[in-house]
Each structure stands twice: as C-alpha cells, then as structure tokens.
C-alpha cells in the first residue's frame, strides 16, 4: 500500500512562509480531503511532493520515496495541479499521446482514459475550445494514464457543474475502493464533504486538524438560540444553570452551547422566564472548518471556544489530532 507522508515540511518563498512545519499522512484505500483557505499552502505542498518545488526543510514522500527517486513516476503517482496545463492548439487526444511514452503506457491507453472521464467524443478537438469542466476531466484523464496507485488532485471540482461534481465524487470513491491513495484539495469543505473519508486541514501553511471526517463531524456542537424580553432574567438563568454561551449575550438574546433545546425550555419554564424564541441552530461542518482555519486575528469565529478552537487559535499551538494519527 502506498502512503503519502509529509514530514515537518517547510517552504518559504522569500519572506512568505507558504508551508510551515507541516506533517500529515495520507492513507491508502481512502479519499483524503486536503483543505484550507486560499493561500493556505495546499498547492505548494503538492508541488513539493511532486518534486517541482524544492522544500526549505523537511520531506515529502510517496511510498517512502521522494518523487525524483521513483523509477517510473507516472506509474506510481497521477497528479493534476490547479491551472490545468494544456497547449490550446493541441487536441485532447494528442495531449495524452504526448505523455503516454514517458508514463510508459501504449497509445491505446489514451483512448481508455478519455472514455473513463467521458471525453471520447471531443478527444479530437483542440483543447483551446474546451470548457473548464472538460479541461478538468482531461487533467484527470492525464493522471489516470499510468493507472497509478496514488492520485494527487488539486481542486479537481473547480469548474464542474453539479452533475460533474456528482460524477467526480463517485469516481474518486471508486478509485479509493480499489485500494488507491487519493488526495483531493479544496478550499471549501462542503465541496468534498460527501467524498472524503479523512480530512487534513491547514491554514497559513500549518496543520490545524487531521482526522477522519466522522471525527471532524464529532466536533460539531448543538446550539440553542434563546430570546427573552427579560434580559436580566435570562442572564441570571444562564449563570445559575452554568451554560456556556457561543458569544456574549446581546440584550435578551443568547446562544447556548451543548444543551438540548428541551432542557433549556424546561429550565426557563421552571424559572418562570418568559421566552419568545427557542430554536436549535445547526452548526454544520463548514462552521467547524471555518472555526479551525479562521485564526485569532479576526478570522470568522465559527464555533464555540473549546479545546479544538483553542488549539487552532494558539499561534504556536499543537494541531488537533484525532484518531489513528494521534494514536501512533
């Protein structure tokens, strides 16, 4: 099984620290989402993994070896980086035929991969006339040429329509089910939420979270919005019950964390507090993601302060590690 391992990786472009002491592992047979806001360092990390960018320090390996040490890299790793790279005057089929010899596959394979991504009909057309979604598919076809056990895809869902995203989702799931290692980057969690098994979240070049998606989902916490005409009474009740608020109470309005709406209602009733609103607010994964990547210096404060958010907002703090990674 071919794992991808990034170990204490740092990369500076002049004064810009694009990747900062980043470590994570991508496991085989699973789709891993590589997430972070714009400029977080996702593409840079992938480019280091692929030997295109030299790291300032640390290592990035595929199956324990650097990309440049792989004998037939195209048979081991299929990679598509953002800003898909094609000569506009070359046809899609010719694009694949250019790379087939070095990947080490016969020309017949070019037709197979075109069919796999659903581009057979347009293979003879110049790429300059392709739509963004068609280019993404052609980039994916290029990565599949060598039938590699490892796939590294930078924002593959960019430019795909909902139908295309659904197709990509099933496609990536099938690839992982075959035992391949699949890493997909994105800057929005919701885009890959239904695709990935694991998540690696980075922000400003540093790891902020790495776990399975289920464990990330475990970080979501229910919130109950309470509105009362009696602000003082509400404040007293919150204090007496020992509830945690998501933020400071605004007038007669408060957001209670980690307490079911029924319990809040019962307590208010018992205290004789008049309520005008009692509503469960859904804190989705996206909010958790924003809470993790938004930093202390004015980023969006998505989730209630807890151990996770505290670690993420501590500038030198350790990233949260849950699950098998932490156990090692």
């Amino acid at each position, binding site marked *: 099984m071919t794992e991808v391992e990034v170990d204490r990786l740092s990369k500076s472009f002049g004064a810009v620290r694009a990747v900062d002491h980043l470590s994570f592992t991508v496991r085989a047979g699973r789709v891993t989402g590589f997430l972070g806001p714009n400029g977080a360092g996702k593409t840079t990390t992938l480019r280091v993994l692929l030997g295109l960018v030299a790291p300032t320090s640390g290592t990035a390996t595929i199956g324990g070896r650097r990309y440049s040490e792989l004998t037939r890299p195209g048979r081991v790793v299929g990679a598509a980086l953002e800003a898909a790279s094609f000569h506009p005057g070359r046809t899609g089929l010719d694009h694949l035929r250019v790379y087939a*010899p070095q990947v080490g596959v016969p020309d017949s394979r070019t037709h197979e991969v075109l069919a796999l991504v659903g581009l057979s009909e347009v293979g003879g057309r110049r790429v300059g006339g392709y739509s963004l979604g068609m280019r993404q598919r052609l980039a994916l076809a290029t990565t599949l040429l060598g039938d590699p056990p490892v796939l590294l895809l930078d924002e593959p869902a960019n430019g795909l329509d909902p139908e295309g995203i659904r197709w990509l989702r099933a496609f990536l799931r099938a690839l992982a089910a075959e035992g391949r290692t699949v890493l997909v980057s994105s800057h929005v969690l919701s885009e890959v939420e239904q695709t990935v098994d694991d998540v690696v979240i980075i922000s400003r070049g540093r790891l902020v979270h790495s776990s399975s998606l289920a464990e990330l989902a475990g970080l979501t916490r229910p919130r109950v919005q309470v509105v009362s005409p009696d602000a003082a009474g509400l404040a007293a009740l919150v204090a007496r019950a020992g509830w945690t608020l998501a933020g400071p109470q605004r007038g007669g309005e408060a957001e209670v964390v980690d307490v079911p709406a029924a319990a809040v209602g019962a307590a208010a009733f018992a205290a004789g507090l008049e309520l005008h609103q009692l509503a469960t607010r859904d804190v989705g994964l996206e909010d958790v993601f924003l809470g993790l990547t938004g930093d202390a210096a004015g980023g969006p404060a998505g989730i209630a302060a807890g151990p996770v958010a505290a670690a993420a907002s501590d500038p030198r703090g350790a990233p949260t590690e849950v699950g098998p990674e932490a156990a090692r």
Partner: protein
Amino acid sequence: MRATLVAEYRKLVTTRLWWILLAAMAAYVGFLAGVIAWTASRPEGLGGSGSAPLSVDETVRSVYTVGSSVGYVFPLVIGALAVASEFRHRTVTPTLLAEPRRTVFLLGKLAAGLGAGLVFGVVGTAVATGVGAAVLSATGSPTLLDQSATWRYVGLAVVAMALWALLGVGVGTVLTNQVAVVVVVLAWTQFVEPIARIALGATSWGGHLVAYLPGAASDALTGGSLYTAVASGPVLDWWAGLLVLLGYVAVLAIAGRLATLRRDIT
C-alpha cells in the same frame, strides 16, 4: 531517453507552429534566392555600384546558402519556442511530472531542436538551391551544380540551420518567457547583429570581434554568404565557425540548466 524523444517529437508535430514556420521559411527563402539569382544575372551583377562585382562562385554560394544566412531565424524561433511554450502554457508541469530528471528534459529538447533544425535546414537549403539554380539556368548563368565544392557548402548550410535550432533551445531555456524570446530573437537577428557587423566590421579591431558573433560564425561555416561577400572584415575558417556555434549552444544550454531548470516550478 527514447520515451522522451518520442514525447518531444509528438509535442512538435501536434501543434500547427512547425508547419506554419516551415511554409513561411520556404516562401521567404525561395523568394530571396530567386531575387538574388536574378539580380546576379543582370549585367551590373551583384556587389552594388561602388564595389567590384562578385565572382561566379561567390554569387552562386550566396544564392544557395540564403537559407542559413537569412532564413536561420526560423529554426532559431522553433527551437526557442519548443522550450518557451512549455512555460507559456504551463505544460512544463506535466512534462516534469512525466520525466522529473531535468537534464533529461533539456537533452530531449536539444534532440528535438536538432531534428527540427535538420528538417528546416534540408527544406530551406533545398528551396534556396532549387529556386536559385532554376533562375540561374533560366538567365543563362552557371549553376555550378556539377561541382562537388557546391554540394559541400550546401550540406554545411543544412548543418548551420540545424545548429540554429539548437541555439534556439538554449535561448528558450535561458529566457523561458515566450514574448521575451520572440522579441530578443528578432531584435538580435534583425538589428543588433547586422548593425554590429557593419559598424564594428569597418574598424580594424572590431572586425575580429564580430567574426565571433553567431551570425558571422554561421556564415563562416558555409564558407561565406552574400553578407560576408559584400561586407569587409575577416571570416573564420569553416571549422572555427562550427566550433563557435557549438560553443554558443553549450554556454546557453548549461546556463539554462543551472538557472532556469534549478528553479522551483510554480
């Protein structure tokens, strides 16, 4: 390496650039060869009103080598764009993913440049010789096609054009920016070097210097051209011209390997 050669060959032939440049070169070179041959057949001959008319041998040589003495800019451009277009369209990323050894990448480009240069050389020289000989014989001038010395410099003209494509690969690797490459190549071949050869060539010290410029070295390789025939100043031996051109290729290729190909590809 074989896979790299196949890949580079396919890169060249799967876009339209190569045959557009080849057709343009053929038309340009054929036109020039015809005009020079026809002018040479006029009573006043070549060489202008002031200077002595060219010898028959010099005239014929000027006609047949017009591909390498004037049309060389075409193989130069195709060599340079073979590298620069990879950076322009960012195909350098998949290219280096398929073959991460950057020296192999450069050697592949040089090999492709050599191949393309030979094709341009054969076509350019064949057109110049064919059109030139046709006009010469139509105007009753000797074609000298029955002499082995003629075929020798015709062959060297092909070699010169192939070397220009190699030199182009070196230029493209050093500059990488497609616009910069085209501007520099045109400015150098159409202005800088011709002016330098005339201006400096007129001075005693400058003449020795300009003989080592690439265009002058290329003309030296074919034993002279219309240019060296009308301009004053020393001309290198054919083998020295060959070595000078190869020297330019080596310096540019090594500089490109050490500068461009060591950098991060982002």
